[in-house]
């Protein structure tokens, strides 16, 4: 065994490319371990944990590339290093089209004065400064990056507000502007419903449900998950409400978020109550249901939000397929489960989808555990085993831990699917599959083997394991929802028609009686 270390000074490769390079490097002949990463404190910690951190590597900075290569025998080293160089070089040449690339934002903005949006997805340490430059240059910002301080977020949003610009994010995963889906988004019909979301998958879900009900989206504006906190005060959501109020394409506005800070909720609602257009408010988990404003309606889930919005545009409800809960199916599933199979295990890629299923379960069961539970008594960490009803948001930082978000790479969930299946108390295994721009090209396909294995384990344990799947996407997405559903149905997975129904079906499958 020979270990080789190098630090390539002043060599920057983005983390996504590095992951792919590391993966391929581990497949080079003779390589027992390959680690190619920027010299960030986190990456150094990883190396320290592997007992691979040397003084030289420890001295690397965030702008230096660290390379650690372990080969079985020394004569394989040169070949492996060359193969690794080839991988790195390919990255450098792989510029897609022969399009000009700009090193600085100033140069990029200068190249096209008509640019009106800067999308920022670089490391959060640097994102705020770039956003500040974009805003000072008169451009709107969509910041996908997270790990930006509250102080920076506030300053950026105040700056944007003062300039009449939109500051979407930090941690803004989705938007649809002028019919173009940005970051994680779905191909939906253009229309008259404007969506403003502090939760990415919640916004995606509503856009998809609107599309499914025959409606269309005028604009979808993401605010970032912290916008409705007391510190930020909903600056972006309020600016976005005014912007959509002024947008002639938009007839109805939907707001979606986890419950805001109470004073912020009041402030946002006061703004919504003053505009001329109907506003549908979907603050998941919020206690509020009576609106003090005539144009503002509260709804309890993403599907009701989409339905209310579509109806507000004047569509006749009787013409819609409402996808009501399928009670005969529920009875059928209940009959297949034995009495010990009392629990739901939900493994989610989408944060809001997890939320919605969690709240559905909480409405009926007391013992609901999750990594996103507010009540500390019911919180689970990434390492803890599931207990009772468990709903995991696998996109939470604790689970990703440097790995790609499960929407990009759902394979992180596979081992857990098999583990849950072995628990005889589990009646329903719930999972979501998110397709569309930014997402994995075949999330169902990579999961099927684990599903089949889970079913085998349950069968050999003498029980039926109900697997409930939900595919978030539209017929216009690539791959299409229909294609993904067909794969799931082929292995006997039950399909939910919406995020809202996913939570309700899972709950009812294991509930002892109707209510």
């Amino acid at each position, binding site marked *: 065994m020979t270990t080789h270390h190098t630090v390539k000074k*002043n060599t*920057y490769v*983005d983390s*996504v490319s590095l992951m792919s390079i590391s993966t391929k490097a581990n497949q080079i002949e003779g390589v027992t371990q390959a680690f190619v990463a920027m*010299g*960030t404190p986190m990456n150094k910690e990883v190396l320290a944990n592997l007992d691979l951190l040397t003084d030289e590597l420890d001295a690397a*900075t*965030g*702008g*230096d590339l660290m390379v650690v290569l372990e080969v079985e025998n020394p004569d394989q080293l040169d070949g492996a290093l060359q193969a690794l160089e080839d991988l790195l070089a390919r990255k450098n040449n792989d510029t*897609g089209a022969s*399009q*000009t*690339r*700009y*090193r*600085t*934002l100033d*140069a*990029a*903005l200068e190249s*096209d004065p*008509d*640019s*009106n*949006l*800067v*999308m*920022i*997805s*670089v*490391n959060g*340490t*640097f994102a705020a*400064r*770039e956003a500040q430059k*974009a805003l*000072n240059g008169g*451009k*709107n910002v969509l910041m*996908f*990056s997270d790990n930006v301080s509250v102080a920076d977020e506030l300053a950026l949003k105040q700056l944007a507000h003062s300039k*009449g*610009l*939109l500051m979407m994010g930090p941690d803004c995963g989705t938007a649809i*502007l*002028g*019919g*173009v*889906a*940005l970051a994680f988004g779905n191909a939906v019909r253009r229309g008259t419903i404007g969506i403003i979301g502090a939760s990415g998958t919640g916004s995606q879900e509503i856009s998809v449900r609107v599309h499914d009900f025959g409606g269309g989206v005028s*604009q979808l504006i993401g605010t970032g998950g912290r916008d409705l906190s007391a510190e930020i005060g909903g600056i972006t959501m309020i*600016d976005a409400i*005014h*912007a959509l109020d*002024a*947008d002639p*394409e938009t007839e109805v506005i939907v707001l979606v978020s986890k419950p805001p800070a109470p004073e912020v909720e009041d402030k946002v609602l006061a703004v919504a109550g003053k505009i001329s257009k109907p506003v549908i408010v979907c603050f998941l988990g919020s206690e509020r249901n009576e609106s003090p404003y005539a144009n503002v309606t509260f709804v309890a889930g993403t599907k009701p939000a989409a339905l209310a919005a579509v109806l507000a545009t004047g569509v006749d409800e009787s013409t819609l397929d409402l996808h009501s809960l399928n009670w005969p199916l529920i009875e059928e599933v209940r009959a297949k489960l034995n009495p010990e199979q009392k629990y739901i295990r939900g493994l989610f890629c989408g944060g809001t989808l997890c939320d919605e299923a969690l709240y559905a379960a909480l409405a009926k069961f007391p013992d609901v555990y999750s990594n996103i539970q507010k009540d500390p008594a019911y919180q689970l960490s990434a390492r803890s085993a599931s207990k009772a009803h468990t709903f995991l948001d696998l996109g939470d930082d604790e689970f990703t831990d440097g790995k790609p978000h499960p929407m990009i790479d759902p394979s992180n969930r596979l081992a857990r699917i098999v583990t849950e299946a072995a628990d005889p108390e589990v009646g329903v295994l719930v999972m979501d599959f998110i397709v569309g*721009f*930014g997402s994995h090209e075949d999330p169902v396909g990579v999961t099927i083997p684990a599903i089949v294995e889970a079913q085998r384990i349950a069968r050999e344990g003498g029980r039926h394991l109900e697997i409930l799947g939900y595919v978030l996407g539209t017929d216009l997405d690539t791959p299409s929802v229909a294609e993904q559903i067909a794969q799931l149905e082929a292995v006997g997975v039950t399909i939910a028609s919406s995020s809202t129904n996913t939570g309700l079906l899972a709950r009812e499958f294991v509930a002892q009686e109707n209510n």
Partner: protein
Amino acid sequence: MTLTSLFAKPVVVNLGLDMFADDITRQGASAIRMDWAPPGGGDPTMVAHLRALEEPALAATIDEANAEAFARITSAQPVLTGFGPAIDVVPGMTATTILHAGPPIEWERMNGPMKGAVTGALVFEGLATTVEEAYEVAGSGEITFAPCHEYGAVGSMAGVTSASMYMHVVENKTHGNIAYTNLSEQLSKILRMGANDQSVIDRLVWMRELFGPMLAEAMTLNPDGIDLRLMMAQALHMGDECHNRNVAGTTLLIQALSPYLVETSFSNAEKRAVLDFVASSDYFSGPTWMAAAKAAMDAAQGVENSTVVTAMARNGVDFGIRVAGLPGQWFTGPAQQVMGPMFAGYKPEDSGLDIGDSAITETYGIGGFSMAAAPAIVALVGGTVDEAMDYSRSMNDITTGNNPNVTIPALNFMGAPTGIDVRKVMETGVLPVINTAIAHKDAGIGMIGAGIVNPPVEAFAKALTAISSSYTA
């Protein structure tokens, strides 16, 4: 609040994951792509300094100051007006002063080639009788060591300049300042490369007794002087980059000097010896362009609030830069190893670290910055012609503007990238590219190769820190 254009059609600048730009393109919209790297090498302190300097009012002040510095550099008109011994022409020069390349350095810390040059110069000046004795004299405290740059001068390689060496006198006719540099010794085993044996001393004596006086007399016959900027611009159009390639420039310069050389009072045999000496190496005009660049760069020295670099210089141990708005200060980092082809028999481990004031040419916008003008020497810098083009283009990322008076034909007459901005270097992580020679690491040997080198980022990081603390105060 209205966002009409955004809501009608987003035109996106994508700073980050390329897959987002791919998806936007798939939907028929346009995305401008970036080749972004963490600013300041990923150091949060540097990012904080950059942000502080981006405060709009301050940024505008700095931009205005840089425009002024750029205007001074590009409007400078360096004219060769004469030659004379350093003791006569360089203000502040004394019989016991030794000027050297790069930022200040004590005798003890000097590297091999510079010690070789210093001791050779002491013998040449009669301050020591042998090189061994010269080592004692150099360390005795009797000798004043100072950077050439602090005396209005520049020095190639070790840059060692002593009282009786003949200097170019180059006057910036636009701004009135004067720059100096000594004469090319032509070959490879020479004082400036660290060689100091008797052949080296004998050549220096010949230069002092004949070469220098003849050039000086010739220039007294030319009352107009020689417009070096014009000549430099011509040389660039003839395939020089005026640092590592000086074939055209040397031809043009000796062509301009010859009518006056023949009119001097020296014998034909002496004139023949001088012309043969000039013909022995293309480097004859190398120092001349350095002095021309120095005359232009010094004009920008002292422009308040400017972040333009006015000098990049190396003493073989430290690499130092000077900044227009912070006169009198040096910002240093460790000198780097020059990468490039070596003369037969030498290996990279034989090379001394980057040395010399010649990077004043890059600071001005020629040399490595105008690499695209000199495709003939891309082999010297180990690359292809396309790479040479990219070197020059990429310098646009870190400079203030393009010199309209010094252009590169192959890049559609793009002006030489001029006015290195400390902010842009730290922002992009793109370091200036310098063409240069390689001296042997030990005293007494000389030149062993040539190649390219970058400054250490530390010098720019220190400059940015000083700029941030003094400009925001």
